[in-house]
C-alpha cells in the first residue's frame, strides 16, 4: 500500500462527507423526470395516437375559405366555426376504411406503400407473435408479410416500422439495452435481425430503408447504417450525437432532446456535406424543425410556423407535436365563440386552406391526430380515416 493510495482513500472519504444531503423531494423529482421521459418516448412511438387536453392555447386560421399566407395574424377569437369537412375540401386524399381487418382483428396503420396498399401491424395476442401485413384497401385482401417476434426479455416492443427497397424494417429493445433492428422481405418471409446495438431506455428514434441499406439512429444519439440483408453496422461519418431526420439528412438535437434547444435546428446532408442551421430568436422555446419548416413558441407563449431561415413567419394554428417534425401540414383544435372546442382541423400552411377532420371532443379530451410522414390517420366511430397528404395539390 503506498502513501499516495492511502492519501487518496482518505481524500475521497473526506470529500464524500462534504456532499450535500439528498432532499426530501428527491423521489418526487425522479418520478417527474421519469414520467416526462416516458411520455416523450411513448409519444415518439405512438405518433398518431396523441390525445390533447382540450382548452390549451391554440390559434386557428379562419375557417373554410381558402387563402394564401395571411398577412395579418389570424386570432383565436376569429374561430367561431369549423371549416368544411376534409372529404369535401380534399376528397381525393381521404379514405375511410373499417376499423377492423377482414379477420376481425384490430390493427395499427403504419403507412401507405402505394395508392391502395397499407402496411399494418396486428399486436401479439397471448402466446402469439405480432404480424405485419400488406392490406389492399380496394380488394380488402390481407397479405401476411412476416411474424413480428418478441424475444424473451423484450422491454420495447416492435416500433418504428419503415419500408422501402422491397423490405420492411423495425426495431425492438431487450432488457439491458440490447437494441435490435429487424428486417423482412415485403414479398413475405421470415424476419431476421440485421443489426444489434446497445441503446438506452429510449431505444431508437429514426429508421429508414434506403437504396441498399437500413439507416437508423439511437435516441441517445448516433446515426448508423447496415446493409439491407444484415452485415456490419457502420457509424455514419459525422453522425455521432446526431439523429436521422430524413435520409440523407441527419441533425441535432433529436425529437427527444431538451425543449430549450431546437429539434433538428442543425442538420447535415450526409451525401453532399451541406449543412443548415435554423434561425432562432431569443426567448423562443419548444422549437422543432423539419427539412423546410420550423414550429415553436415565442416569448409571449404564442406558436409560430416559418421557414428554417426564419422567413414567412406566421402564427401557427396547430398544436406542437413531440412525435414528428413540422411540415407543410399540421393539426389543431378549433374553438367556438364560447371558447369550447368544436373539432380538430387539418391545416395546409402553404396554401392557407384548412379542413375539418371529423373528430369531436369526448368529455374533456379530443383525439389529436398528427401528420406522420405523408399521412394522417384517425379513428372515426367504427372507421379509420386515412388522409393521404401526397394527394393534396
Amino acid at each position, binding site marked *: 500500500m503506498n502513501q*499516495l*493510495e492511502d*492519501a*487518496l*482513500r*482518505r*481524500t*475521497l*472519504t*473526506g*470529500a*464524500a*462527507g*462534504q*456532499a*450535500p*444531503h*439528498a*432532499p426530501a*423531494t*428527491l*423521489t*418526487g*423529482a*425522479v*418520478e*417527474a*423526470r*421519469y414520467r*416526462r*421521459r*416516458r411520455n416523450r418516448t411513448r409519444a415518439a412511438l405512438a405518433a398518431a395516437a396523441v390525445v390533447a387536453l382540450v382548452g390549451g392555447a391554440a390559434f386557428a386560421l379562419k375557417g373554410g375559405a381558402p387563402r394564401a399566407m395571411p398577412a395579418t395574424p389570424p386570432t383565436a377569437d376569429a374561430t367561431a366555426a369549423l371549416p368544411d369537412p376534409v372529404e369535401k375540401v380534399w376528397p381525393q386524399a381521404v379514405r375511410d376504411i373499417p376499423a377492423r381487418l377482414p379477420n376481425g382483428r384490430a390493427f395499427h396503420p403504419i403507412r401507405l406503400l402505394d395508392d391502395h396498399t397499407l402496411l399494418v401491424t396486428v399486436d401479439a395476442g397471448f402466446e402469439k407473435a405480432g404480424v405485419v401485413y400488406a392490406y389492399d384497401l380496394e380488394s380488402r385482401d390481407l397479405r401476411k408479410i412476416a411474424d413480428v417476434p418478441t424475444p424473451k426479455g423484450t*422491454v420495447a416492443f416492435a416500433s418504428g416500422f419503415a419500408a422501402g427497397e422491397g423490405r420492411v424494417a423495425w426495431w425492438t429493445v431487450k*432488457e439491458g439495452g440490447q437494441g435490435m433492428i429487424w428486417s423482412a422481405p415485403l414479398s413475405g418471409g421470415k424476419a431476421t435481425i440485421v443489426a444489434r446495438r446497445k441503446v*438506452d*431506455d429510449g431505444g431508437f428514434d429514426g429508421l429508414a430503408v434506403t437504396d441498399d441499406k437500413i439507416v437508423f439512429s439511437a435516441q441517445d444519439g448516433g446515426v448508423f447504417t447496415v446493409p439491407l440483408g444484415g452485415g456490419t453496422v457502420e457509424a455514419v461519418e459525422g453522425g455521432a450525437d446526431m439523429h436521422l431526420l430524413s435520409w440523407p439528412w441527419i441533425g441535432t438535437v433529436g425529437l427527444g*432532446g*431538451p425543449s*430549450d*434547444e431546437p429539434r433538428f435546428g442543425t442538420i447535415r446532408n450526409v451525401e453532399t456535406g451541406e449543412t443548415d442551421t435554423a434561425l432562432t430568436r431569443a426567448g423562443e422555446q419548444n422549437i422543432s424543425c423539419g427539412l423546410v419548416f420550423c414550429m415553436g413558441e415565442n416569448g409571449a407563449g404564442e406558436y409560430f410556423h416559418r421557414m428554417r431561415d426564419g422567413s414567412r413567419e406566421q402564427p401557427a394554428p396547430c398544436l406542437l407535436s413531440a412525435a414528428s417534425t413540422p411540415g407543410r401540414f399540421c393539426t389543431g383544435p378549433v374553438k367556438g365563440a364560447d371558447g369550447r372546442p368544436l373539432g380538430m382541423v387539418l391545416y395546409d400552411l402553404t396554401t392557407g386552406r384548412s379542413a375539418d377532420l371529423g373528430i369531436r371532443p369526448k368529455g374533456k379530451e379530443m383525439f389529436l391526430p398528427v401528420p406522420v410522414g405523408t399521412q394522417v390517420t384517425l379513428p372515426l366511430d367504427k372507421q379509420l380515416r386515412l388522409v393521404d397528404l401526397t394527394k393534396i395539390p
Partner: protein
Amino acid sequence: MDQDPRFAEFVAERGDALLRYGYVLAGNPHDAADLVQEALVKLRASWARVRLKDNPESYARTTMARLHIRAWRLRRREHLAWDPPEREHHDTLPDGEEQRLWHAMAGLPRRQRAVVVLRYYEQLTDEEIARVLGVSRGTVRSQAARALAKLRDSVSAESAVPTTRGEAR
C-alpha cells in the same frame, strides 16, 4: 405503472449514500445531483426487474459510473428538478495534502477519475471495475497507472504553487 413504494423507500434510504458517491465521481455537487437523479430515473424505469434480479444500489452505482465516463452532459439536456446550493466544500478537508489531491483529481480525464473512485472509494478490485465500466482489466490497470502518475505529478507541483479552488474542470 404506479410507483412502487419500495422505490421511494430505497431513494429515501440510499439517496445520501448515492449522492456522496456522485460527488466524488463528478467533483461538484451539481453534477453529483444530476448523476444521482439520472441514475435513479433509469432505476425507476427498470425497478421491477432490478429489484428481483439485481441489487438496486449496485445497479444505480454502475449506472452513475457509466454515465460519468460517457462525458455525459445532462445539464444541456434537461433542467434540474433539484439543484443543490453552491458551497465551499473542500476547505474542511483536514490537511493540505488531501486538499491538494482533491484539486488534482479535477484535472483527471473522466475515465481515469472513475477508475480512481472505484478503486479507492468503492474499494473495488480491477476485475470488478472492468465489469462496472465495461472495459478490459488491462484498460483499468493502465488508466489507474496513468491517473496515479498524474496525481503524483500535480500534487508535487501544487505543493510549490498552491491553488485556491477545487472545482476547476
